[in-house]
């Protein structure tokens, strides 16, 4: 960035039919996009609605569309995304209903985690009780490595907002829900494999993915939901071909 003294920030205001408001924010060293939004709300317009909590990339609540791309704003340095004019464009996350300003409604996103059977169902204790014995899952086993690869999801919905298939088919489960399903399909302690694979098959499930890999490209945690979806496709293919489902 050619050190502009101030940032010209366009911020989405209102609901789905709202528009951009423009603010001038002082440029500072090591400034994150969330710092910019916070400055606007605290110093310029207290009515601005946005969402954040941890500010350190753990909670997944501050994601927004920054200059056209979904990003976690607390860990996005302004200098990495702003052009030489100091222009910044902020919108709420795409593919989700807008509550107001920069706050999107994540309910449909988390509903799809439920639909994809994204909760752990202990095999040894079907009633949900804690099993008496610890399960031994060797860290080097293939299933464990597959599960580990996707387990660090923080539920920020950046992948969901970046997914073209979600935009085309609002019923599509989306990358995060299926990434979660894939970790559980690979969890040897889980007992709901068949129901889960059934839930992610079909038109709104893994087979609709076109492997554009926008989810993998944008995931702030460097997870690979695209490969998780490919894993679900592969498992369903062989299970169906070999009559295992």
């Amino acid at each position, binding site marked *: 960035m050619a050190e502009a003294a101030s940032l010209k920030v366009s911020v989405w205001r209102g609901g789905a039919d709202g528009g951009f408001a423009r603010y001038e924010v002082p440029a500072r060293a090591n400034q994150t996009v969330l710092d910019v939004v916070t400055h606007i709300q605290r110093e310029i317009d207290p009515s601005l609605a946005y969402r954040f909590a941890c500010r350190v990339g753990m909670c997944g609540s501050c994601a927004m569309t920054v200059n*056209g791309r979904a990003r976690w704003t607390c860990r996005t340095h302004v200098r990495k995304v702003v052009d030489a004019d100091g222009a910044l464009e902020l919108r709420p996350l795409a593919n989700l209903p807008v509550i107001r300003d920069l706050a999107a409604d994540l309910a449909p996103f988390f509903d799809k985690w439920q639909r994809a059977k994204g909760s752990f169902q202990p095999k040894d204790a079907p009633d949900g009780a804690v099993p008496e014995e610890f399960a031994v899952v060797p860290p080097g086993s293939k299933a464990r490595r597959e599960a580990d690869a996707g387990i660090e999801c923080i539920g920020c919905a950046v992948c969901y907002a970046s997914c*073209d298939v979600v935009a085309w088919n609002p019923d599509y489960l989306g990358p995060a829900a299926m990434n979660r399903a894939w970790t559980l399909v690979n969890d040897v302690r889980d007992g709901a494999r068949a129901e889960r694979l059934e839930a992610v098959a079909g038109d709104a499930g893994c087979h609709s993915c*076109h*492997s*554009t890999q*926008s989810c993998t*490209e944008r995931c702030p945690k460097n997870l690979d939901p*695209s*490969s998780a979806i*490919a894993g679900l496709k592969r498992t369903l293919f062989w299970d169906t071909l070999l009559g295992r489902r």
Partner: protein
Amino acid sequence: MDMRPRSHPTWIAFLVHRVSGLLLALFLPLHFWALGTAIQGEARLEGFIRWADNPLVKAAETILVVLLAAHLAGGLRVMALEFLGWRRRQKDMVAASAGLALLAGLLFLLNVV
């Protein structure tokens, strides 16, 4: 459509795969029509093949070969991702697919035109 979030290699590979597939599907009726001219006699097919020797048609054929090779190589890449789980080095895989498609076009130009 906002192209800012759609500029990564794997998205462009998806676009090339989709567009090449559509163009190849549009070409197929023409292909069958050309073959169908043989039914009406050798002379008619021969006449068509002579007409197809003109440079503009050869240029179009080269584009067709590139489209076909791009669709094939891109399809193999996606199948490797989905069936073999080749998740690493996707950008290199995209580049290799594009290289194969262009190489096929070049070989066609060198040998046929």
